[in-house]
């Protein structure tokens, strides 16, 4: 079953707040995480992506998936995760 974008965004924010605290829940969906969040360096970003992998049971390839762009905002991240989920469902069907 495909998850709605809103639900995915909510779950991404939960992953993000694990790394950066409550600011992760309130950041606008189209704002750059790197530029908008305090202490969100590349390792924090990698940590966030690891949480996302666990939350959605997906595998994110740091290089081939161009994570720097695709996970740069909540909005882009949700679209990317939705694609990963749908790709996984397509493999199973």
């Amino acid at each position: 079953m495909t998850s709605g974008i809103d639900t995915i965004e909510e779950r991404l924010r939960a992953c993000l707040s694990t790394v950066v605290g409550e600011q992760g829940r309130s950041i606008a969906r189209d704002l750059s995480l790197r530029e908008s969040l305090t202490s969100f360096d590349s390792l924090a970003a990698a940590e966030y992506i690891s949480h996302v992998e666990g939350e959605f049971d997906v595998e994110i390839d740091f290089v081939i998936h161009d994570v720097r762009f695709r996970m740069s905002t909540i909005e882009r991240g949700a679209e990317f995760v939705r694609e990963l989920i749908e790709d996984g469902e397509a493999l199973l069907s």
Partner: protein
Amino acid sequence: MTSDLVHFTTSGSTGTPVVWERTLDQLRLEGELMAKALQSRPDAVLTFADPAHLYGRIFGMEVPRILGVPTTQVESVLGPVVLPDAEHLLVVACPSTWKVLTSRMWARAGARLTIVHGAGPMPTSVDRVLDGFDVPPETTEVFGSTECGGVALRRVQAGVAPGPWRLVDDVDMLEPESGYGRLRVASQRIAHRVGQSPRADFLTEDLVERLDDRSFRHTGRRDRTLKIDGRRCDLEQVESMLGAALGADVACVPRPDDLRSWTYDVIVEGVVGDPTWVRGLVPVQPRSVELRETLPRTSRGKIDYAELAR
């Protein structure tokens, strides 16, 4: 030896950073020793290690220069990662690099890999990552510090428990003389603090078990300093600083971390409210901040860190 000096800073986030000096000859010597220690000869280097730190300088600059091969520096674990055109590639890895080593990019490139790992403990994912390669990369772990340089090496194989550390050729283990104790090493590559005389040996904060004249097992550290993201963080100082700011007892509990080498949890006693504001008080972000009514205590009334670590 020439007197040209290069500075490396133990970048402390608590306490004053210390500047250590090394001569160019010392750096060249270390590069030669490390190049020799590699069992095979790569034809290019891809480094994820910061060249401002000794490990990154040695393996990202000195070793390639000695081998006469090009080096490519990766600035961030998020990329971009551009693979050099090589049949045999040396990857200079830090803990966070292992997230990138899971990429299908490596298989597509088809190059043979040799990996050297330093600047923090191996992440827990190492076995899984190495197993993902059709041909497991020859992998070497480096034990060392800004003060001593590379002290010891050991090979890493998927599914095989780590073996003892073996001293680099020019290093002598002065202490412990037998059994367990603080590690004191001697070599021509010991750094000295700015304004101080060169030194021949250094007493580390590492606790080891001496196995024989050339090998040891690491058993822990004497102090409560962690290396987080390559920065030294003295947990005792963090506790003292937070305790003074909050007027409460604070415990900082170290936790191993696959990306940052180490992280820590902050637990505050007897303070109420949203704990996240405490993050604004600490120079190095903890993994978590927790407020508790009481901290576990030993029979002597001291904070029971063993209980907190469970």
